[in-house]
């Protein structure tokens, strides 16, 4: 546990000192909203369209985080330092996934109000608790996949290309379940319960890929 907290402190300190990921992600998400506004030619959206825009924007902004996640470790010797330490390698995966989860939360703190302000027709008020649950599950799935795929992609020649290319198909179930869950919340007078089926899929996805990633992460670090 102390390993995890040490790694996590390092990740967050690095981010706070360099501001490499989160500000870029935030700016990117707001820009995507503007692009969606002109691309769809809509002043406001609701229901399924709003859910789709929110999930897709989160995904694309998250891709920036995925691409940056391991770059410092690869280029500035973070992997070597970690491998020299007598600790279980799985902790690096857990720390990276947790750090990315935190980045996504920071992103959403700005992104969701910006979405409500710029594009969303109905207010978010009464649906907020459910919205937080859905976003937490979506973040979890994204952070797990990104921490695994990022570790694969960073050591290839075409890292910025391969990361999103591998991660996006893997994340399709998250998009499906996330959009289905958000859709009723973003309608006029939304809120009031989530469909258990989709919650189960999201939860199962996070669980299965969390365990799977922990199981297969080790070989990615050997050298």
């Amino acid at each position, binding site marked *: 546990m102390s390993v995890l907290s040490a790694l996590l402190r390092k990740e967050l300190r690095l981010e706070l000192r360099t501001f490499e990921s989160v500000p870029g992600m935030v700016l990117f998400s707001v820009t995507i909203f503007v692009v969606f506004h002109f691309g769809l030619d809509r002043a406001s959206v609701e229901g399924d369209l709003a859910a789709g825009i929110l999930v897709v924007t989160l995904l694309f902004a998250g891709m920036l985080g995925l691409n940056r996640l391991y770059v410092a470790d690869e280029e500035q010797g973070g992997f070597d330092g970690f491998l020299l330490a007598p600790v279980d390698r799985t902790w690096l995966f857990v720390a990276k996934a947790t750090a990315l989860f935190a980045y996504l939360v920071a992103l959403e703190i700005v992104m969701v109000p910006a979405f409500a302000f710029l594009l969303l027709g109905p207010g978010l008020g009464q649906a907020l608790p459910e919205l937080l649950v859905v976003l937490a599950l979506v973040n979890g799935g994204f952070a797990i996949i990104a921490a*695994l795929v990022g570790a*694969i992609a960073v*050591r*290839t*020649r*075409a890292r910025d290309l*391969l990361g999103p*290319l*591998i991660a*996006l*198909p*893997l994340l*399709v*179930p998250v998009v*499906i*379940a996330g959009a*289905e869950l958000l859709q009723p919340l973003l309608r006029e007078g939304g809120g009031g319960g989530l469909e258990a*089926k989709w919650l189960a*899929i999201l939860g*199962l*996805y996070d669980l*299965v*890929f969390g365990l*799977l*990633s922990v199981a*297969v*992460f080790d*070989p*990615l670090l*050997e*050298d």
Partner: protein
Amino acid sequence: MYGKGLRGLSVATIITLVGAFALVFFYAPNDRDQGFIQKIFYLHVPMAIVALGGFVAGGLLAIQHLRTRDPKWDLRSYVAIHISIILAVGVLVTGSIWAKGSWGHWWLWDEPTLVSFLIVFLLYATYTPMRFAIEDRERQARYASVFAITAGAFVPLNFAAVRMAEAYTHPRVLSTTGGAMPGDMRLTFMVAIVGMILLFITLYRFELATKHARGRLRSLRRQLTGDDAPVPRRTAAPTI
């Protein structure tokens, strides 16, 4: 040693496949609703099942590779996935033709099986570029195995998620709800699927034999020419 029994296997594959298509055209009845176009089913469905089975098999072989670190398991995993990708292209093409013939559209988004197959195909389409982007042989094998295991686990989960999301228009072939095929259709289908499995195994064995022969040739050439041997090109395929 790798070419052993290949001739018998090839002959058995050809006989079964020819027999399957003879049954398709001369024995199995035309479907009452869809008519003749339904016969593409005897090609499309076995191909899809074998391709998905090949993807999962690639994942299982990759587990073996990570456990033993023997490159031959990586080669097997690679070959299984490689052939499955080729079959998957065939599945998408025949599925699209069938959809056009029986539903009137080349592509239907409310078709869970079609859509999930496309997602799986898009995922595996990155397998070869990923291998190609890693130069170090040993690392390429390791990373490819991690990919193969993750993607292999993704296949069933993805099908569950997409199927729950959409309506049920795709015929269920081997499930309890839609599997009510008459006897002669079922027989034809079973022969077709055995033929497709045999085809997969034959191609798999041929590809393994070729890869081994090529590796052997390379090492012989290296022994003959010494250090002057040409540097092998960068490839996505594992070398033994």
